[in-house]
């Protein structure tokens, strides 16, 4: 009879792999990191890592999904407290205005995320994963805009889908620019937020 491996044991191993992978990615970059590197850092063999994850892409997706899930819960509970569509969208911008991309840790996260995004551009399959991940928030903004139109807060000519993407365009733009230490992250994002809200608000 094979030894019984407890669920806890497996979970702990998984956690260890995820943590070690994150450290490797942050230090060397996603593309340059190999599964062997992750093995070395976690003290596991390459083979045993493959018992838990198919690829380093799968490892990063797992890390990413954990953050996304946390954000979803946070956003959903805050949205429940907010009345108007404009204040909901404003809240989404404020999440990013509260970040501190100047801090090394945050820059690291941003750099890793976009390194991975550009890596995905080279594979349709990975791109699909990325798009799927973004769907929750895209749909949330779309719905919020539609509700705002019905409530007479938001201009009825606004294309909800387009403006959902425009929101992400702003976030992607300022995040990518923020890896330079001279970038005026808050001033730029605050101004772009105002421009966005001005555009959608019912005149």
């Amino acid at each position, binding site marked *: 009879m094979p030894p019984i491996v407890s669920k806890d044991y497996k979970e702990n191993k998984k956690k260890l792999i995820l943590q070690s992978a994150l450290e490797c990615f942050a230090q060397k970059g996603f593309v340059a990191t190999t599964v062997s590197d992750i093995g070395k850092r976690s003290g596991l063999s390459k083979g045993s890592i493959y018992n838990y994850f198919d690829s380093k892409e799968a490892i990063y997706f797992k890390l990413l999904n954990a953050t996304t899930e946390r954000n979803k819960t946070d956003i959903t509970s805050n949205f429940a407290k907010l009345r108007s569509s404009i204040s909901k969208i404003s809240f989404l911008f404020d999440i990013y205005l509260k970040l501190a991309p100047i801090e090394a840790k945050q820059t690291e996260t941003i750099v890793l995320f*976009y390194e991975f995004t*550009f890596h995905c551009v080279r594979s349709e399959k990975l791109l699909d994963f990325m798009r799927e991940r973004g769907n929750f928030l895209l749909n949330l903004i779309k719905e919020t805009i539609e509700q705002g139109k019905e409530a007479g807060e938001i201009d009825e000519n606004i294309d909800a889908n387009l403006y959902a*993407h425009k929101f992400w365009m702003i976030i992607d733009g300022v995040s990518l620019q923020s890896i330079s230490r*001279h970038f005026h992250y808050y001033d730029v994002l605050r101004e772009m937020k105002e421009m966005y809200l001005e555009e959608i608000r019912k005149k």
Partner: protein
Amino acid sequence: MPVVKEDYREEQRLKVLKGAFECFYKNGYELAKMDDIVTESGISKGTIYKLFKSKEEIYIQLIEHISNVFLEELKQIVSQYQTSKEKIAALYTDYLLHGKEGNMKKSFIVQSEFELYSSRQAGFNEYLDKLRKTKNQFISDLLTEGIQSGEFKKELDVTVYAEIFWSFVSGIMTQQLLYSNLSFEQIVNEEKKTFLKKICVEA
């Protein structure tokens, strides 16, 4: 004759850069092999190493080259217009909408990946700063001219607005990579209107 020799050397250098550009675009810098650059450029490995110390040096020179060519293109575009307002508008229409399309996507990926890479490399900050500074300066100079000619608002923060412009470019290019069916043209045209409305003195 030494002059011919210099020309020949430069011609070879550019061929290597062009080959490297294709390789870095296809597989990313980290995964691109010197052998790939040899194949793509048709220049022998021995010659490449006479011209460049390392793959990294090719990377640095390539980015400098792309950035110079790009800036020349922008200067060329705006030089065809008289007023500052027309010049800014031309950045959206003549460059973003009618620029060399395929090349723009490739350059964006290669340049962005360089920026991400350089944020992790010790001693690379100066390259990142220089790249950003040249681009920002170009826009902020145009904005300053417009203020002096009375077309743009006196109180306009030219640094922040230059950064808004580049944030928009990074943002739209990234969203476009993820969602190729987005209406690029509509977004660019709307952004042009919003941006101009913000910076121009009201008529």
